[in-house]
């Protein structure tokens, strides 16, 4: 068994080495395409976090004071339930608000430590029937005057721009990435095909002496999988560069204050890295599997 394992490893390494230029091309293509996949995921996540409170049509948020009385609360709720100008709302209590705070500032433990659920303001996230900016501003003003209301935050034009910008960028990256992942698969297929061609004689002999198809295929599939995994391994540092340079730049820029929320916790970057490895491995396996099933049949 160990001998057989050694056989697979040896054959795979020899083949990778013989085919070096194509191997490098395949690995780099995988690396570039997976970097784009990763960047797209990071930007999407960053934007989602920066605008988390204003998803799904929510145009403004009524924050209550932390110690609002039940009567004050009921009055607001009453207006929301009965007003035709409100098409829907969700209530975020102290505990939920604290949870969200923890999630948004996962990178800044000192900030999380400084607050407790008790000081978090409960809030109403409101979807107006008419999202027109003037109408929203007017509604916000009216709610702001109610007793027990701490402040009203409206979804500004800036938020919409962030959402719009990040959606476009991440979608463009994703499209490019999908195309490149396809290209990578084809390139791996070709590289493995070339490797098979270089060993046509050996494969012929192997078949005639009774080697099983899997015995013949495994080194080639390992080769393709290594292309994919090596490419993914190169894409992971690129992901951290995107996180620490690009996203951090937005975060620190004062030009648009909202971008400050444009942060992605390290945990998410690591999770994305694992996904890249999985995708890389799959791309390699699929590409090489296509090559071996087409070209090594009995």
């Amino acid at each position, binding site marked *: 068994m160990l*001998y*057989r394992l050694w*056989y697979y490893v040896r054959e795979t390494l020899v083949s990778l080495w013989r085919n070096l230029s194509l191997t490098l091309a395949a690995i780099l293509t995988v690396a570039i395409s997976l970097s784009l996949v990763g960047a797209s995921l990071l930007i999407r996540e960053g934007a989602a976090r920066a605008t988390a409170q204003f998803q799904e049509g929510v145009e403004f948020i009524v924050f209550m004071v932390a110690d609002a009385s039940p009567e004050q609360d009921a009055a607001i709720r009453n207006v929301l339930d009965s007003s035709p100008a409100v098409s829907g709302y969700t209530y975020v209590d102290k505990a939920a608000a604290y949870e969200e705070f923890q999630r948004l500032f996962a990178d800044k433990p000192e900030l999380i430590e400084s607050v407790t659920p008790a000081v978090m303001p409960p809030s109403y996230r409101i979807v107006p029937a008419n999202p027109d900016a003037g109408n929203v501003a007017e509604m916000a003003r009216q709610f702001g005057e109610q007793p027990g209301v701490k402040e009203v935050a409206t979804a500004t034009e800036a938020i919409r721009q962030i959402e719009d910008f990040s959606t476009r960028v991440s979608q463009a990256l994703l499209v490019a990435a999908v195309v490149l992942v396809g290209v990578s698969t084809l390139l791996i297929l070709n590289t493995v095909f070339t490797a098979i061609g270089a060993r046509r*004689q*050996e494969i*012929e*002999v*192997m*078949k*005639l*002496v*009774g*080697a*099983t*198809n899997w*015995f*013949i295929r495994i080194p080639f599939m390992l080769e393709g999988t290594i292309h994919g995994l090596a490419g993914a391994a190169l894409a992971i540092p690129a992901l951290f560069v995107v996180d620490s340079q690009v996203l951090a730049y937005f975060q620190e820029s004062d030009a648009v204050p909202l971008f400050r929320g444009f942060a992605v916790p390290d945990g998410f970057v690591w999770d994305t890295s694992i996904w890249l490895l999985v995708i890389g491995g799959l791309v390699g396996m699929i590409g090489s599997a296509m090559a071996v099933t087409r070209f090594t049949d*009995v």
Partner: protein
Amino acid sequence: MIKLEGVSKIFKGDVVALKNATAEIQRGEFVFLVGPSGSGKSTFIRLLNREEVADEGRIMVAGKDLGSLSSWKVPYLRRNIGYIFQDYKLLPKKTVYENVAFGLEVIGRPRQVIRQQVPAILELVGLARKAERLPDELSGGEKQRVSIARAFVNRPMILLADEPTGNLDPGTSVGIMRLLDRINRSGTTVVMATHDRGVVDTMRRRVIELDRGVITRDESRGVYE
């Protein structure tokens, strides 16, 4: 050991390679397949190894019906069949030893078996001293001996040979035939396609003659013509 019943093989363009062939070969027999080029000798051999599948009829090899043998079982069938070619099919970058060991390695034999059997078979074919040579450094006869060693190292029940002396001079051919005869006497069934009149007439073994895919003669102790 080998049984063909009404076997036909037709290639694209209505090329009849074998037509209604029936023959039975017992364990331990030595059979020559003779006939002009294109008479179906190679197809006969390739059918036994299941490189080709018959269009009609039934082929039994080592107790297996090849028509109903699923493709994943084919490698296991081939482990019972050694195969020798006119052009040797040696791997040029491997030494004599490695070429022979390759035949065992790729069917997953353990290393100690390989270490034991490869030197023994090289001794048998008379190449023990040239184990570290590359194929390019060998004569034609020596190359064919390596090819025989690789085919026989796994001790198959059947040895198929397609024109094994086709590239060799008569003197060298005699040596190769002695080796095949010796292997045959150890109980291995040998089926050999050949054009080599001298070899067939000297050996006086069973001869099956093919002409345009049809078996026209089947004699035990026959001659070339």
